[in-house]
């Protein structure tokens, strides 16, 4: 039964955002009897809103509020994330992968690297391991807890056959948080494709129809969609007393809170901290050491498309079609630190026309596109390094409709990333060539779906924004609950780690609430 809380009810925990971090945290807290108000900037959609039309769903789901990218980013669309209930779990491709233990110790493992700010995570990997298992169970991750892997699609079979011929061994359909058997009141996957457009049958895990309704069923939870939090409110002692949010009509409201948890993704989370200035926090909350917004990471992200000698029809079936993991390990002999995955990923005709040759046109190019059925394609996802100069900051002049500075996002590739990208694209080309590719094509830098690290956790406030539980330094009752906490990007797609951190934070918060420490 969904509850309704009063604006002046200061006993509630306010969660900002309803995606992998906020949705999971909301369900975990309310499931243990904590009263939660979740404020989500986007609207609440249902499965019937999810139609198999990529262009239309892009407009419906994507966060398109003005942002400005600089450096190596697309200026107009630096990041590709969602503004909807469920957040980016609505459009994610569901690869729920664990990082390696070593990837929590990048400084110890790779050593200091120039022009990067490596740091080991302030929590041991083993502290998260039970939560990884819990998260996999909660999300129904195929290939874990006795659930079968998904069957390989055509695009996967090309990747797999090529990878095995060049000697790779760690090749599988991947740990996908998509039902490979019916469970949790949701059906088994039907290989629809269009995972990025919202799963029309709910086979893919998304907080929109898993954690949010579960939270509502507890009687300790209220979701307020189309409620964009614009500012945190604090008293003279530094305690966060509530949040100001704009509802659909643009009017402002203040919701009181005993504790506030921000899970607004790695761009809006630091923006909210930076926009929350007061005499006590002249540079924004948690920003006493200037770390808020810094160390922005987005993974080494690139693509390879291959024209194969026969039909592939890569558009059929699960979009995230398997993964080659042999190159994820740190092998300094390759000329760069850390590693990467090669993950099957098809393109629609429109996307293929845009990226195959970003300037392509004419008879030859059009003929090439007519071979759409014969293309196979993959994405590279590799670890990029934290660099304090890659950052989310407040734009000097441009304001949003509430008069708040829009986020300015600056990112430049580290030479480590460029070396990795070169290696990864060559490796992917070899894979496709091993099974007869006639031509291969490289795709440079899609807008990031993995946005990480802008409020990193640390032992001490000199080194980061929040402590190992996600509590913002200098505050008692403000937490960061999303991928902003990441200390390093790791080689894994980030959602499983975000969910695991949210579950761990929920346990910590409940303990604190019981002991009246919150």
């Amino acid at each position: 039964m969904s509850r309704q809380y009063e604006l002046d009810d200061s006993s509630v925990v306010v969660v900002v955002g309803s995606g992998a971090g906020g949705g999971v945290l909301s369900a975990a807290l309310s499931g243990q009897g904590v009263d939660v108000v979740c404020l989500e900037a986007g609207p609440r959609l249902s499965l019937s809103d999810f139609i198999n039309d990529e262009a239309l769903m892009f407009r419906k789901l994507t966060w398109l509020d003005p942002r400005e990218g600089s450096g190596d980013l697309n200026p107009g669309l630096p990041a590709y994330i969602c503004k909807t209930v469920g957040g980016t779990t609505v459009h994610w491709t569901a690869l729920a992968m664990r990082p390696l233990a070593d990837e929590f110790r990048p400084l110890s493992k790779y050593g200091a690297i120039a022009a990067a700010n490596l740091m080991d995570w302030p929590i041991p990997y083993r502290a998260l391991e039970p939560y990884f298992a819990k998260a996999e169970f909660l999300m129904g991750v195929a290939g874990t807890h006795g659930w079968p892997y998904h069957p390989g699609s055509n695009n996967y079979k090309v990747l797999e056959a090529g990878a095995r011929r060049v000697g790779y061994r760690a090749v599988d359909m991947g740990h996908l948080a998509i039902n490979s058997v019916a469970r949790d009141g949701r059906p088994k996957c039907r290989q629809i494709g269009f995972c990025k457009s919202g799963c029309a049958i709910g086979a893919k895990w998304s907080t929109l129809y898993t954690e949010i309704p579960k939270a509502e069923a507890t009687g300790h939870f209220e979701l307020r969609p189309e409620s964009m939090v614009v500012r945190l409110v604090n008293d003279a002692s530094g305690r966060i007393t509530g949040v100001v949010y704009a509802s659909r009509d643009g009017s402002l409201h203040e919701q009181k809170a005993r504790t506030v948890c921000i899970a607004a993704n790695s761009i809006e989370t630091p923006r909210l901290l930076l926009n929350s200035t007061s005499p006590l926090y002249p540079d924004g909350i948690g920003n006493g050491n200037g770390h808020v917004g810094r160390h922005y990471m987005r993974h080494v992200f690139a693509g390879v498309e291959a024209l194969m000698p026969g039909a592939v029809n890569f558009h059929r079936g699960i979009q995230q079609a398997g993964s080659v993991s042999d190159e994820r390990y740190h092998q300094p002999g390759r000329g760069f630190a850390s590693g990467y995955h090669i993950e099957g990923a098809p393109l629609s005709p429109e996307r293929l026309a845009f990226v195959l040759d970003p300037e392509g046109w004419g008879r030859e190019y059009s003929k090439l596109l007519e071979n759409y059925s014969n293309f196979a394609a993959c994405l590279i996802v590799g670890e990029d390094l934290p660099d304090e100069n890659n950052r989310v900051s407040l734009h000097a002049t441009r304001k949003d409709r509430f008069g708040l500075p829009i986020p300015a996002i600056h990112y430049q590739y580290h030479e480590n990333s460029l070396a990795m990208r070169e290696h990864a694209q060559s490796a992917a080309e070899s894979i496709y060539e091993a099974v007869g590719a006639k031509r291969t094509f490289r795709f440079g830098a899609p807008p990031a779906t993995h946005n990480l690290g802008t409020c990193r956790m640390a032992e001490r406030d000199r080194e980061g924004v929040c402590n190992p539980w996600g509590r913002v330094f200098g505050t008692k009752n403000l937490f960061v609950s999303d991928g902003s906490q990441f200390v390093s990007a790791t080689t894994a797609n980030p959602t499983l780690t975000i969910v695991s951190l949210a579950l761990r934070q929920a346990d910590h918060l409940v303990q604190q609430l019981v002991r009246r420490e919150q």
Partner: protein
Amino acid sequence: MPPEGDSHDAARRSLLKGLTAAIALLAGDFRGLIAAPLGGGEQLQFRRTLTTLAHDLFPHKGLAIGHYEAVAALLLDEAAKDDGIAAQLRAGIAALEKGEPPWADRSEEGRVAAIERIAGSRFFSLARTKSIEQLYRDKAVWRLLGYEGSSVEYGGYVDRGFDDIDWLPDGKDDL
């Protein structure tokens, strides 16, 4: 303004001014120079030019001209809503029309050579983007390409060939 004491200075300033304008023209950036809605005559002429341009950018055999006319309609529609876009069209088409005969009346070879000259301009990038967005979202083009699109109404691809690839080598040495 003080009176010009040095005619060299004046000449230099005038030259710089001219250069700046020339660079703006070369870059196809007419924003601010001619920012006004398209007139009726322009609409007619532009419709023909843009239709032919969309075709020459992405010529697909067997695709009726109506699918390319839709690109022109899309661009003109945007120009009607945004004077900046109108100015871009005006500038880009003027660049395309340089020389004789009218661009759309030239041979394909002649038209393509003119497009090559403007490739990289803002107008070119706009025309390419809108052509892709219109054409490759068009179901007739999907059929031509073998893209099957929406599948949920057919129960997905699970029983419709998601794993039907039959030409991949089985073992290690049979390629």
